């Protein structure tokens, strides 16, 4: 799939349609992938695409809002672009989306060849980007499996005490580097609530109580917005299963509001609207 991306990138740069193509290249371990910014046609042959290309590159678009940019986007990355368009964070006219058909990507493990497919990809039914200007790869013929959240359902079966114990251990592990936030396309606030000094919602102490409020509120701020791209979990240096939190919110978003973020550029996010006669989540 790399060659058509290179050809398109070359054409876009040569014709001056864009001045930068954001894609992937091989990382220094020779195995995994890393983001690549191509400004010069001489570099287009460095572009690649395969199952190691895990990053959600749409995260970089906020740094290039006013510049013509082409971006390689997997289905979940394209959903993030839609989400950002829903929230008036991007100008579609400045964007050229090279969509790639995706059958799932692997865990990012530096230097390791025998990595598994990411858990979220098992239940993904979005193999074709919901938005693109140019599509790379064959549209799959098979009916995709229905979306589901078996991982979340499994976790919900635990008792409250078990769930609490599980997360408290994760809060202890968290070193509050904020990589989850910085890897996320949805976390574009100029100043995050966690950086507010007065009141200091999240103190600087790297301790479970502060990590709890950080992790819960971070995830909740992405409710109705998280596109299931897994960037946060792939970045986390202490392997906190952040997608459990995010996917729980996705599951409830569908159940309560019938909403899945990023499927359309014209969608109204669930917290920007309401129905007068609804009872989300049921009574009690």
């Amino acid at each position, binding site marked *: 799939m790399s060659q058509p991306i290179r050809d398109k990138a070359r054409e876009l740069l040569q014709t001056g349609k864009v001045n930068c193509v954001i894609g992937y290249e091989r990382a220094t371990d020779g195995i995994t992938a890393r983001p690549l910014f191509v400004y010069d046609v001489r570099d287009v042959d460095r572009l690649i695409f395969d199952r190691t290309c895990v990053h959600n590159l749409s995260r970089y678009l906020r740094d290039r809002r006013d510049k013509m940019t082409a971006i390689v986007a997997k289905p979940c990355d394209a959903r993030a672009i839609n989400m950002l368009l829903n929230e008036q964070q991007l100008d579609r006219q400045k964007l050229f989306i090279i969509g790639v058909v995706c059958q799932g990507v692997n865990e990012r493990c530096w230097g390791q060849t025998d990595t598994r497919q990411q858990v979220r990809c098992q239940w993904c039914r979005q193999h074709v980007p919901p938005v693109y200007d140019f599509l790379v790869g064959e549209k799959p013929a098979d009916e995709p499996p229905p979306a589901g959240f078996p991982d979340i359902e499994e976790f919900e079966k635990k008792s409250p005490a078990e769930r*609490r114990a599980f997360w408290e251990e994760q809060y202890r592990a968290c070193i509050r580097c904020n990589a989850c936030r910085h890897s996320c396309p949805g976390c574009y606030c100029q100043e995050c609530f966690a950086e507010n000094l007065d009141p200091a919602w999240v103190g600087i102490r790297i301790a479970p109580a502060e990590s709890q409020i950080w992790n819960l509120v971070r995830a909740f701020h992405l409710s109705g917005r998280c596109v299931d791209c897994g960037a946060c979990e792939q970045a986390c240096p202490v392997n906190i299963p952040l997608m459990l939190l995010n996917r729980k919110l996705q599951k409830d978003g569908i159940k*309560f509001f019938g909403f899945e973020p990023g499927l359309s550029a014209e969608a109204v996010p669930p917290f920007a609207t309401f*129905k*007068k006669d609804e009872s989300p989540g049921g009574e009690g």
Partner: protein
Amino acid sequence: MVTAYQPRIIGFLCNWCSYAGADLAGTSRISYPGNIRIIRVPCSARVDPLFIVKAFQYGADGVLVAGCHPGDCHYSEGNYHTRRRLALLRSFLDFTGIERERVRLEWVSASEGRRWSQVVTDFTAQVAALGPRVK
């Protein structure tokens, strides 16, 4: 002497309906448990989910959010937004081990002093039954 466990409850009350309702309960001398600490907010929609998580971090055992009945919001539609947010937040907190029964959203109007007392009594009993959040 054995003292029964007394839960700590934080109440976020909208200025226009529920706070007035609680006030009415007071002036009408309708009693209700004193476990609740009331924070007045301009509208139930002012209650950022962050406030609720923060209340739990500071040791609250339960959080009650009260606002105007649907259709009666002073700002037309604030409480509809609150309803959506709180529905998701309750389910989410439950997932992380903070039982959904610890968070409640109620509609209490300015004339419902008695209902306010009932809501607080019910909720206090419900939270007390769960026991302390931090064991």
